[in-house]
């Protein structure tokens, strides 16, 4: 079953800016889906329309078979949204923010209480339940928005840059949480500028640019298209000029490090044979950039 089906979706703002130019997109139920694109590509407009925060100009959107125009209430019940910007009442307590959201979804207070406790505990916020939300740290505020989005147990959780501006420890715990939620059966759509996040978590990917979907595929097949890997090699002794090895493009990053473009067809063994033959000892190596990042740049440029 399709969690999300979008056909010919267009959005033109009052100032004439065409943010979406006829988008078609399907997300299967249970998927962990990455929606990537540079700033201003149309990601937030697309998410805004799916979650009823932005009026579309034309096109169809349906969620788990519920059309957003004709069956709006049932469509909305399927979604939980974690927006990019903090958007809760800064003067309300943590517990009441989540409790009120449950109320908006029609869950009576008594029934919502255990669910609120579960979500806040899952986000490690239960100890802060009576704290006024504006006193929370940045990472806690983001976790509160996730707890709020999950309180009605949505079948589709949309996370719009949930890890922006949070430290690596919190980011890792949020990755774990997203994975757990997905494992429990919820479909997840993630937008992020951290491409390693998308690469490690998501099974399918769509890339949007200038209001159009320019790529939709499985993450593995997309990564499979990469023909060249880029590595940085740290050398035991400095060099004045880069070595020459047939088939590889090698540059000096500095006197003690090399940047090597490695064609997949050749692999790494001939490179190390060549380096060893020239008496160059390598002490460590790393990917210059993550693989998806390179593809992303190639696609949107």
């Amino acid at each position: 079953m399709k969690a999300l089906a979008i056909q010919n979706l267009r959005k033109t703002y009052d100032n004439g800016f065409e943010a979406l130019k006829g988008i078609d997109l399907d997300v299967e139920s249970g998927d962990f889906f990455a929606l990537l694109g540079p700033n201003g590509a149309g990601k937030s407009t697309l998410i805004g329309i799916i979650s009823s925060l932005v009026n579309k100009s034309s096109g169809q959107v349906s969620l788990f078979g519920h059309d957003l125009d004709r069956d709006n209430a049932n469509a909305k019940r399927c979604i939980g949204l974690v927006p990019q910007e903090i958007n809760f009442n800064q003067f309300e307590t943590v517990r009441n923010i989540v409790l009120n959201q449950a109320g908006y979804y029609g869950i009576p207070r008594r029934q919502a209480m255990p669910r609120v406790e579960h979500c806040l505990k899952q986000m490690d916020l239960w100890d802060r339940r009576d704290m006024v939300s504006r006193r929370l740290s940045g990472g806690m505020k983001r976790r509160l928005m996730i707890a709020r989005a999950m309180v009605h147990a949505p079948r589709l959780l949309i996370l719009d840059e949930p890890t922006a501006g949070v430290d690596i420890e919190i980011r890792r715990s949020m990755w774990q949480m997203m994975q757990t939620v997905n494992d429990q059966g919820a479909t997840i759509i993630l937008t992020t500028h951290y491409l390693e996040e998308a690469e490690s978590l998501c099974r399918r990917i769509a890339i949007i640019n200038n209001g159009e979907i320019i790529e939709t595929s499985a993450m593995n097949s997309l990564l499979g298209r990469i023909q060249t890997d880029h590595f940085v090699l740290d050398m035991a002794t400095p060099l004045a000029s880069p070595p020459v090895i047939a088939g590889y493009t090698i540059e000096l990053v500095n006197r003690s490090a090399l940047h090597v473009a490695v064609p997949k067809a050749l692999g790494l063994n001939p490179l190390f044979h060549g380096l060893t033959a020239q008496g160059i000892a390598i002490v460590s190596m790393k990917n210059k950039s993550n693989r998806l990042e390179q593809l992303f740049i190639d696609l949107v440029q």
Partner: protein
Amino acid sequence: MTIHTVAFNTILIKEIRRFARIWPQTLLPPAITTALYFLIFGRLIGERIGSVSGVSYMDYIVPGVILMSVISHSYANVVSSFYSTKFQHHIEELLVAPVPNAVILAGYVCGGVARGILVGGVVAGIARLFTPIEVQHWDIALAVLVLTATLFALAGFINAVFADSFDAISIIPNFVLTPLSYLGGVFYSLAMLPPIWQTIARGNPILYMINAFRYGLIGVSDVDVTLAFQMTGSVIVLLIVFSLILLHKGVGIKN
């Protein structure tokens, strides 16, 4: 309890908790201000004025002062709360959820009505310290109280929908509501005005509400009470329809 009832209760309770939490800003000022009105206008100046329409001046001004407080507080509650909801973007909590527009409107308006009536009760309590008013027509007084609070809560909601700054939510209360309330016969009878001003004053809708409430409380009115109810009811229906159209189109709250 239906899901819409749960959503309505959630908004209403949130609104009531909001103005109760900031009671020094919402409930205390009208008590102090109106106590000064009753002391200065009712007691000190009123004793020199004598009777108006057959009642003491203190008794004459009590209904208008109560209703003036109801008007300003029912309006202020909705305009500030709903604008703040927009400003902090937590209106999005409601927009993403399956809450019908009518429930959103009803929740906020009833929150404003609750504050208006509570403030009206506080002011009435203060008035009782100055004069022992015996209510003449409870049904009319209560109906006018609720309808007036509803009308101005709706007006506050519409103001908040269009507002794009904190200045925009203070312009109408300061430059429209306050002058119309003072010129709506709170402190004087229409009969005390020259004929031309009597005609102009009859164009002020607040005059009808204040006089209808005055009739309910002390049995005195300058206008036809039935006409006052018809006017208030009609305006409420118009404001409800207009508010729902604004919400449906997403004016001021959706891109």
